[in-house]
């Protein structure tokens, strides 16, 4: 099995059994991000405490890439500071996922990251 294939399996696992799926009742930030081209949607709730993402949950519907990516993202950002997360660029994130994606699917993969960044920006503005 190539590294590609392994990474594909990992994201599929996340898709089949998403981590951190659901709502946070007392969220300090939340956002719904949507790709009109395919209807992929990710809703993210975050709970910040002491300058760190203490809790994060997502809900959504979409393809295995967008939803698997969302699940992986929630694991990834937990415990990190907003500043750290804001610094993660598209390229870096895609590299982390380790999949070879066409331009259309890249958008799916990036949807959760964009949602996360938006949720943080909203919060920062407050």
């Amino acid at each position, binding site marked *: 099995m190539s590294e590609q294939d392994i990474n594909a399996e990992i994201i*599929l696992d996340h*898709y*089949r*059994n*998403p981590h951190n*799926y*659901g*709502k946070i009742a007392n969220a300090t930030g939340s956002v*719904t991000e*949507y790709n*009109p*081209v*395919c*209807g*992929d*949607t990710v*809703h993210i709730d975050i709970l910040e405490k002491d300058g760190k993402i203490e809790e994060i949950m997502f*809900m*959504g*519907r*979409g*393809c*295995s*890439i*967008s939803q698997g990516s969302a699940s992986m993202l929630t694991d990834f950002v937990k415990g990190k500071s907003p500043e750290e997360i804001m610094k993660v660029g598209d390229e870096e994130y895609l590299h982390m996922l380790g999949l070879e994606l066409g331009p*259309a*699917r890249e958008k*799916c993969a990036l949807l959760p990251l964009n949602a996360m960044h938006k949720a943080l920006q909203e919060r920062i503005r407050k």
Partner: protein
Amino acid sequence: MIDSNVIKKDFPVLSRKFHGKEIIYLDSAATSQKPRSVIEAMSNYYENYNSNVHRGIYQLSEESTDIYEKTRENVASFVSCSARETVYVRNTTEALNLLAYSLGHRLRRGDRILLTEMEHHSNIIPWQFLKSKGVELDYVKMDADFNLDMEDYSEKLKKNPKIVSVTQCSNVLGTINPVKEMGSLAHERGSVFIVDGAQSVPHMPVSFRDLDCDFIAFSGHKMLGPMGIGCLVGKLEELKTMHPFLGGGDMIREVSYEGATWNDVPYKFEAGTPNVAGSVGLSAAVDYLRNIGMDSVMDHERLLIRETLKLAPEIEGLVSFGPSDPEKRGGVFSFNIGSMPAFRIERELEAGNMVVSGSVHPHDVAASLDQQSIAIRSGHHCAMPLMGRMDVAATSRASYYVYNSIEDVKNLFIALSDVKRLFAR
């Protein structure tokens, strides 16, 4: 009867292999592949005749003009209208915009336009632009079997719409609408009747004369022709009285610094240097289709759809969108595996089921088929309002043409059963 395996050989792209397998191209509703004869006709034009038309008094330009006008006659005869009624445009989208802008000149606040729920964006947005003038839009409803509700149509016609614009064949559902009957009803009310022929002209016999519509629009690239060329066919009297759309060279008779008068139809609507090579390609495509025969094209696609509807129930949970009667539809098959409603958080929380089980997102369907070298489309198919109406976020769509075989359909369903196994959760 068509032998699609012989036909396939005329289409260079279709011998390409991905993952070791020859491509099975099932996205002809988006754009068709081109036979060698079309590609070569254009190269031949550029290599031997290329020049600007209409204004040149040298042999190359006279030949070019002659070629351009002959392609127009050929295309016109294909849809049974006269060359003078045939305006070359880029594609269906431009044709419908031309109509919206030009007929829009006549509309006043409170005037109505009647469309249907199953229109492509290109037959919605241009008319929505007119809302800023106070024009109002209605949409004819579908019935439960994805056919237009003719009672609703009659009802909405009573509001005396100035314009009725309807697709002859839905690019999502395959539904073939009774445009001839609809046209007569519209004309009784004095409405201008427009047919979006983007999905009909390539796939079935269409006669402008017979339809008794005022306009029909279609794209070359969906009927084996090149990109960048299409037609707006219109009744002569309408074209003559309409305001021009694009201004520029060739569409004028006389110009001064103060104003201008217009050239004869169809040139009045063909501003600027036309796509002569495109017209040559389209004409070659028309020859290719005529040689097969449009009845045969339609029969062949009906065969494929019948096979499709036969195989579909074998995929557990497959939901398809389109008329159940294969005689009422074109070669388009939209479906989902499981339910695929648009995400709305309140609804999800209420339902309490956090993950829709058993369903596979259209993106995953398409990506997974791509691994088998099968090209289908997934998404909203430029019909977002229809997606909303059907309460789906997106669908997958396979669409057929002359180069598709029964084996292609069978392979589609073999691959689909794998998809289910891979992605369902």
